[in-house]
Structures are given as structure tokens and as C-alpha cells.
């Protein structure tokens, strides 16, 4: 993870957020995914209602599939919905995502932050 991307400040965020004793985000990527969707909606790239439709689809796909022991993970579906709506809007193509993931994954261990 590049530090500039995942540097979340010293308090409030990286310090595990709690509401009524419960973690609000279980991992930094959850909060990044959450914030990306909100930021793009605020800019008018899509409406939150449109995003919700994709989220419902992503959750529905998960619920219809067999996952064995794998637990349900809300923000995974959130990220899937975000990728889907950006592909549908031709903002970020699936191929661009694949390429970038490939590049990031090539970083040697120990030099990936």
C-alpha cells in the first residue's frame, strides 16, 4: 500500500472508530471504498439511488451464490457495486482495473509501502 494513499491521519480514522463499542470500519480499505462512492456521488458522477441499485444487485448475487464457510462481508459488496457502476458509466473500465491491479501486485514484497 502506498503511504500517500492509505495514510489516514493520526486520530479519528486509523484509531479504530467505535460507535457504541463497535468498529465502524473493520479495515482501512472499507473506509476508502465507502468514501470513494460518497465522493463520486457528491460530484454527480452517479446518484446514491443509482449506487444503491448496484449495491442491491451485488448483495443479491452474493446471497444467491454458495459461499461455504465464507462470512458475508458488506463492504466487499459495496466495492463490487462501486466497480460495477463505474464500469457501467464508462468511467473506469474493467480492463483498466485489471491492469492496475496487476501493476500493483508486481511490487516486490517489503517495498509495497
Amino acid at each position, binding site marked *: *500500500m*502506498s503511504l*500517500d*494513499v*492509505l*495514510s*489516514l*491521519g493520526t486520530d*479519528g*480514522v486509523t484509531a479504530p*472508530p467505535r*460507535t*457504541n463499542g*463497535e*468498529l*465502524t*470500519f*473493520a*479495515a482501512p*480499505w472499507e*473506509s*476508502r*471504498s*465507502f*468514501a*470513494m462512492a*460518497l*465522493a*463520486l*456521488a*457528491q*460530484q454527480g*458522477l452517479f446518484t*446514491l*439511488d443509482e449506487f*444503491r441499485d448496484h*449495491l*442491491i444487485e451485488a*448483495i443479491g448475487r452474493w*446471497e444467491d451464490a454458495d459461499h461455504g464457510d465464507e462470512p*458475508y462481508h*458488506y*463492504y*466487499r459488496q459495496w*466495492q463490487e457495486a*462501486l*466497480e460495477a457502476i*463505474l464500469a457501467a458509466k464508462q*468511467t*473506469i473500465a474493467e480492463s*483498466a*482495473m*485489471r491492469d*492496475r*491491479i*496487476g501493476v*500493483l*501486485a*508486481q511490487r516486490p514484497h517489503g517495498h509495497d509501502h
Partner: protein
Amino acid sequence: MTEKTEPADMPSIELRTEALESLLVEAGLVTPEALDGLINRYVADVGPMNGAKVVAKAWTDDAYRRQLLDDGTAAVGELGFAGPQGEHIVVVENTPEIHNVVVCTLCSCYPWPVLGLPPDWYKDPAYRSRMVREPRTLLSEMGLDLDDDVDVRVWDSSAENRYFVLPERPEGTESMSEEELAELVTRDAMVGVAKVTAP
């Protein structure tokens, strides 16, 4: 080139979110700082305390209570709480005869501006389906036993309406100030899976 370490096959979720963020930053659509700001706002500033203030005010100001039940969005906005996903807030009032509880069966719609981010159990498929099918049983499992003569009403949050519950003011709190009352109000009570108890 070993096939075993093919990264694009099943990239980790961390890698996917990082890749997406870097692409969006390059496209000029987001900045890391703006995302930090949003996260901070939802984690630190928006939370159940906003809703607790609304409830405490409704308990101590009957005109506000009526306004809140009549037009939740406006009444909540009057206290300065508004934002994404809080556009249509509907407040349902618990009484000795009626207990309201909120769920979102399709995804996890939630009144973020007043309650912050939803807890894990709210997003759980079991909560979402069972609260509709067997609310009394599930509420009991969550620690809330209701008398048989109490009418349980389950509200399904949607894109149109985000519900939150105005809990009953507990007995023995008559002398407490609005600020003191707000500290008693929990997120769970405003979703309707708990009652507010006197200190």
C-alpha cells in the same frame, strides 16, 4: 512467470480498493485528502449522538416532537443534521402499545446523518430477513423482550424513506436536562432493537 502467483486471478480486496483509488485520483475524480475528510466526518462527527440530540429535544419540547413526527427531514435539518442518504427521514414513535423497529431488507439503507454508519448486525443478511419474518423472536435474542400485547411494527428502509425510532422516555428521568437525556439515548434504541433505560 509462475501460474501460482497470478495476481489478477483473485486479487485481494485491499488491492482492488487501492487500484480503484489510484485510477480515480489519476482521472482527477477524487483526491486522497477529500476521501480522508469524508471518512473523518462520518467516523468522528456524524454518529448516533446526532440522533440522540434529536430524541432528547423531542422528549423535552412537545412542539418539536410533533414537528419531528410530521416532517422528520425538516425537524432533523433544523438541528443542522443533513447530508447524503438523509434526505427523507421518517421518525416513528414508540409508545407503551407500539414498538417500532427498522430494517433494510434489500441492502442496508440507514439514516446516516443522524445515526452515523450502520453497525455490522444491521447489514447482516440474517437480521435483514429475520426482522421481517419473526421480529419478536429476533428482538428477544437481541435482548429486548416485549409483552404479547405490544404491537410490533417493522419498517423497511428504502431509497425513499430512512426510518428512525423515537424511543420512549424512560421513567425516572423527569428532572434530567436535555443534554443529560441525550447521553442516555443509544443507537440501538433509535433502530428499535433496545429501549432507553434510566441511569
